[in-house]
């Protein structure tokens, strides 16, 4: 477990990672201001940091990076209702960003609202199935909900345990800075939504068996923790979920696949939509179980047939 000093450093790490993303991907004009705000927050000058961010927001009220930083500052200031407001609006405007959900969950958890925290974290994971921080937080929230349920079962006074949990959850939020830049720009693309609707093309049905075979092999490789075999299922032009570089994405996936002692991935009620001879979309319920975690989510794999075999070109989670 990390101590609070470390956690504060990591919190800044989170902010800086986001700012870096902002520099790289968005208008450079405000980058300096946000950078300053982040530095002020780092120095403990929360009010000044907030003033700075507010100035940026006066110019660009929709800016996700600035809003996210504002949420962090408000959280550090202990202004929970305001921080909740900021993060909630972010989730509404950018439903594909996992981080605001995660931070919302941390605040809810610190208030003892574990059901809300759970809902937010589940959304965060549905948005980005490989978002490790959300998984870890969700594990803690499940454990906390479990202890509440046990308390009701056994008529125990769980108030002490609740106070204890608040601290560890704040640490949870910042235990691990984002491994990749927040895909704010990517996620904000409205085009992606439209692409999710599968075009019901009347195509050769005999291809679907082959597609399912590939999907099953993919799940099997994952379950076997065979990262090479798993990654081999992805097409050369695979759209990484966060828009990051292929190498970076692979590295992240490899860690996720190799870290747990055991993994079991199940495919339930799959539905194959053929979009021609060499394009298919498979939607299914993915159950994931490792020695650490158990989740289930809707998943859609977009597959293409290249070099004589089906490969994953895009992977989408959530409803």
């Amino acid at each position, binding site marked *: 477990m990390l101590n609070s000093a470390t956690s504060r450093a990591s919190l800044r790490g989170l902010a800086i990672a986001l700012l870096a993303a902002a520099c790289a991907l968005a208008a450079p004009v405000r980058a300096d201001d946000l950078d300053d705000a982040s530095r002020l927050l780092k120095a403990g000058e929360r009010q000044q940091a907030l003033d700075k961010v507010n100035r940026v927001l006066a110019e660009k009220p929709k800016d996700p990076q600035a809003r996210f930083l504002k949420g962090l500052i408000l959280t550090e200031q202990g202004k929970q209702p305001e921080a909740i407001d900021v993060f909630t609006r972010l989730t509404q405007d950018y439903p594909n960003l996992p981080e605001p959900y995660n931070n919302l969950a941390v605040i809810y958890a610190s208030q003892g609202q574990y059901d809300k925290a759970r809902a937010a974290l589940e959304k965060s994971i549905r948005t980005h199935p490989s978002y490790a921080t959300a998984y870890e937080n*969700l594990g803690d929230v499940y454990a906390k909900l479990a*202890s509440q349920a*046990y308390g009701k*079962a056994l008529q125990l006074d769980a108030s002490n345990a609740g106070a204890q949990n608040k601290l560890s959850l704040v640490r949870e939020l910042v235990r691990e800075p984002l491994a990749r830049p927040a895909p704010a720009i990517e996620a904000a693309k409205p085009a992606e939504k439209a692409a999710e609707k599968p075009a019901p093309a009347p195509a050769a049905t005999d291809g679907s068996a082959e597609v399912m075979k590939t999907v099953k092999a993919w799940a099997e490789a994952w379950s076997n923790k065979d990262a090479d075999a798993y990654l081999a299922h992805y097409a050369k032009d695979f759209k990484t979920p966060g828009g990051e570089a292929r190498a970076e994405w692979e590295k992240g996936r490899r860690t996720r696949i190799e870290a747990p002692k055991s993994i079991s991935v199940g495919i339930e009620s799959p539905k194959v939509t053929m979009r021609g001879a060499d394009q298919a979309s498979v939607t299914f319920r993915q159950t994931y179980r490792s020695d650490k975690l158990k989740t289930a989510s809707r998943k859609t794999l977009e597959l293409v047939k290249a070099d004589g075999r089906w490969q994953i070109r895009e992977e989408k989670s959530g409803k």
Partner: protein
Amino acid sequence: MIRLFTIAFALALAGLACAATPEDKLSAVFEAIEANKLDLAMKRVDALIAEHPNFRLAHLVRGDLLLARAQPLQTFGNVVKTVPQARVDELRAEAMARLRARQRPADDRLPRYVLQLQPGQKHAIVVDARRSRLYVYANADGKPRLIADYYVTLGKNGIEKTREGDQKTPVGVYTVIANLPRSKLTDFYGAGAFPINYPNEWDKRQGRNGHGIWLHGVPSDVYARPPRASDGCIVLANPDLEAVGRQLQVGLTPVIIADEVEWSERSALEAERASLAAALEQWRADWQSRDTERYLAHYSSRFASGRQDLAAWGAHKRTVNAARKWIKVGVARVSMLRYPRERDVVVVSFDQDYRSDGLSNVMKKRQYWVKEGAGWKILYEGAG
């Protein structure tokens, strides 16, 4: 034909939907867990808790389902070691009792105790202490038919009550003797209470004492209590007590409490019932014939009624019968209930219509019959 079948099927489904008791719903949770459908199990347990917020066992199962998402479970009721383990064990015991009860007796298996119900008895209650289960049988033309069963809590110290304050539940054949509504009780008894006639004549004969054995509900802050928690009473969840209570008839409904219910085939029960019915009829005929020695031959050497042993009873009957010119004995509304834990003892209750040139009277009579050798003999006789 097909349409009829469809309608019947739809009705059957509707019936099933209506009959989804909390018990069934908990079973459905366990079924989902067994099928490894944990999300479904969670949905079901959430619904169950929404309906019965004080169902502690349901909360325990929910705790496990949540914890299973965070870490592998070590045990059922995976709570930390610092909580009182006795409470967890009680809930585990409740879970075990409820799980075992999912195996209902097969249709052709009947409790060996209910040989015959009289027409006025709409139901009979049979309690299986080992299974923490209460079975409700409907009277279908004198034969029992299982219509419902419920989880019950019994005495802290188990069964076979003998002494006041031993916190045990008696084993025997009893009758509901009162109906105490909720308004006359403290919250501890929940939805109501139905006292039974412990100690009955057989208990008294064995020197057992104590009093106040009731069927009753639970306090409002719980849904159910652990399997062994009462001072000897039979405790049901409040909705269950209400459902059972609707079937109980004060002064009529038998409550048979067994250690572990013995099950029997209908044909075997029928054979036994017929042989006892024949013995009863012979007793009636012999009494009516005023052949006192043949009449007294129906009584066991161990017979006792109040302070009378067989000799005293025989002397009295000889005197009375000799003074009569004629006797007519009518026997009607006969029930025959085998006594659990006793070797071939059956409690026979009936309406006796006695007429003679001297005294005539109509009374409720109770006899305890025992199988001695090939035949049935009377061990006890008194007012019912």
